[in-house]
């Protein structure tokens, strides 16, 4: 009966969702393998969805199957040759880079293609322009600062009505790249005053965990005097205020906006050699550029310089070219990501064009 039902059912469904906002990209050389396989970071999954939509519109009959199985799994599957490229919240470690080189028979490239700003969202009656610097944020999230009217917070927020209430920290209870990057920021920007390992689990030792960004968002929205870190898109959609950050250069507090994050990305240093664009995350998190918002999750695409099967190389190149096209970049903001600023896009384009 179910079999019959399933057969009947199969006749009436379709993947055809034409008429959407997705547009055809320009400046892409299509061709190569029809269906690419990739896996990895969940943080960039929505960005990849937008890229794939544009890719399918641009290159007829070509697609990418991206599984959001986690960064670690993504890197492993790429090294194991099960996938054509990986999405990862961290660049390959040196031992992984060697294995990847063996798999590719050429150096593997780390390409930071997707940047997602992280908001420090808070729920504080009557305050919508809270300002924090790296050291203060670090001490809030490791429990050294426990009340909202602590002198350290008050010093950055003169004239604002900070309550004498305890700070309730909301964190992610599930493993995530967001937690890892946020803790890396806290350590970097506070000159290690945070003092906890930057892993995928929250190590701050205070507060209450909630499942996923949505869980942290809901918890922050429903708990007065609470604070948490979430992807910017979640804060925007829930209309939660995000703290303005005083970056390592001092100066005035910087609000979370696409432009301000772009300033930080444009100033970022690269430690990778040649076409490898592994980022020096310290230069992002400790940016001294005036008006740059420093807390962003940088996620990479990990690819081979030269694929054993040239068809695969052509398709990977076409997909990444599509991703950099203005049309694909245009899909990013609605997902809470930041389009790649022009100066950095130049470097990515050079690297991508070197793939074969």
């Amino acid at each position: 009966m179910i079999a019959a039902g399933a057969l009947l059912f199969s006749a009436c469904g379709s993947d055809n969702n034409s008429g959407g906002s997705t547009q055809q990209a320009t400046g892409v050389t299509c061709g190569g393998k029809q269906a690419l396989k990739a896996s990895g970071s969940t943080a960039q999954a929505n960005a990849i969805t937008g890229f794939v939509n544009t890719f399918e519109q641009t290159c007829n009959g070509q697609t990418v199957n991206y599984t959001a199985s986690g960064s670690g799994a993504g890197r492993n599957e790429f090294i194991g040759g099960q996938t054509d490229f990986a999405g990862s919240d961290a660049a390959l470690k040196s031992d992984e880079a060697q294995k990847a080189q063996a798999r590719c028979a050429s150096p593997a490239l780390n390409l930071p293609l997707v940047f997602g700003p992280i908001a420090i969202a808070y729920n504080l009656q009557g305050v919508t322009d809270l300002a924090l610097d790296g050291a203060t944020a670090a001490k809030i999230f490791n429990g050294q600062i426990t009340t909202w009217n602590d002198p350290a917070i008050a010093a950055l927020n003169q004239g604002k009505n900070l309550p004498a209430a305890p700070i309730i920290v909301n964190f992610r209870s599930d493993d995530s790249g967001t937690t890892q990057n946020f803790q890396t920021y806290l350590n970097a920007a506070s000159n290690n005053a945070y003092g906890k390992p930057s892993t995928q689990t929250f190590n701050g030792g205070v507060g209450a965990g909630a499942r996923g960004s949505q869980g942290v968002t809901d918890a922050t929205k429903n708990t007065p005097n609470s604070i948490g870190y979430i992807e910017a898109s979640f804060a925007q959609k829930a209309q939660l205020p995000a703290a303005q950050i005083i970056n390592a250069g001092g100066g005035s507090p910087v609000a979370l906006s696409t432009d301000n994050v772009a300033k930080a990305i444009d100033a970022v240093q690269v430690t990778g050699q040649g076409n490898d664009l592994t980022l020096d995350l310290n230069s992002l998190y400790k940016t001294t550029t005036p008006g740059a918002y420093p807390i962003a999750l940088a996620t990479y695409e990990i690819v081979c310089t030269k694929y054993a099967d040239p068809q695969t190389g052509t398709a990977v190149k076409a997909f990444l070219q599509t991703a950099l096209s203005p049309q694909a970049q245009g899909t990013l903001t609605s997902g809470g990501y930041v389009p790649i600023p022009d100066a950095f896009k130049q470097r990515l384009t050079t690297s991508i064009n070197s793939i074969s």
Partner: protein
Amino acid sequence: MTPDGDEADPNTVSERTTQRAPSDDPETRDRPSGSATMASVTETKPPSTGSSRTTSGGVGERVFRGLTTGSGLVVVAAIALIGLFLVVQAVPSLLANNANFLTSPDFNTSDAGNLRFGIRDLLAVTLLSSLMALAIAMPIGMGIALFLTQYTPARLARPFSYVIGLLAAVPSIVFGLWGILVLAPAIEPIAQFLQTYLGWFFLFAPGNLPVLTGTIFTGGIVLAIMILPIITATTREVFAQTPRFQIEAAQALGATRWEVIRMAVLPYGRSGFIAASMLGLGRALGETIAVLIVIRTATSPSHLSLFDGGATFASKIAAAASEFSQPLPTGAYIAAGLVLFVLTFVVNALARVVAGGKVNG
């Protein structure tokens, strides 16, 4: 309740019997639950199906017999394999563990070279939330089963049980969302009240969370709602099978409806009810997504309070499922899964012992 209402009872029972008339015979002999009947199944079956005949079937008989026995063995093998492979995958991680697996509250697998994981708090949170769910769901479940079998006319009993069964159709992820977004704020005043006035008792003492929503207390209530249909369904079936002569005997003594229940229905259905509750407990122990969403995690060890946060075995595993890539950290979660497997094994074995026979899942 009017005297008329009291009369409805024998009426209902007799109507039910009329409906069941054709099957009366095998039903009384082969009733699926209850200790007395289990014995009768094993006693009456062999002569009637005739073990002597089974030898005379030829090839077809042997093949069919082999197929059925093989299928039975699949079940035995499945359980054995689950145990075996969980152990095989867990052992390397357990050997690499730098914390005491049984007594450590940590569960730190970020560094594959320095695994530190223990199940103390997972066990505490799992047991507290499940037992609380059981404490709520058992009386309510029994009440519903009595309501459906002893108080509701037969023609209403079916749609009513269907309605309760609907609870089982709600995906657990929805229970989770409802629990944290709707229920948790609604019961916060109750939690506040309990903590203020009964805080001296360890279960209601301040917990390790800075908030009173999304605690084990909230999770226990959500779990109670989720296991209610399981407890109700089985208990209802057992209660409905109370032998008519026992009910009539009680009625003949002039018992009120409650007294009939106490004298005939409850003694008959007690073991079935307890077994059903154990099944519910088993389900609560293993519930994953609802707990993952509802119960918030804490950064300090458990205080054994209902206002603690934390993770259960199942929710801990699910929270890490997106990063199962390296064998050793994954093995740590498989070890936790193994303990959960053993826990549910014990609970279900107990259910069977209590019921004196098999229980419906």
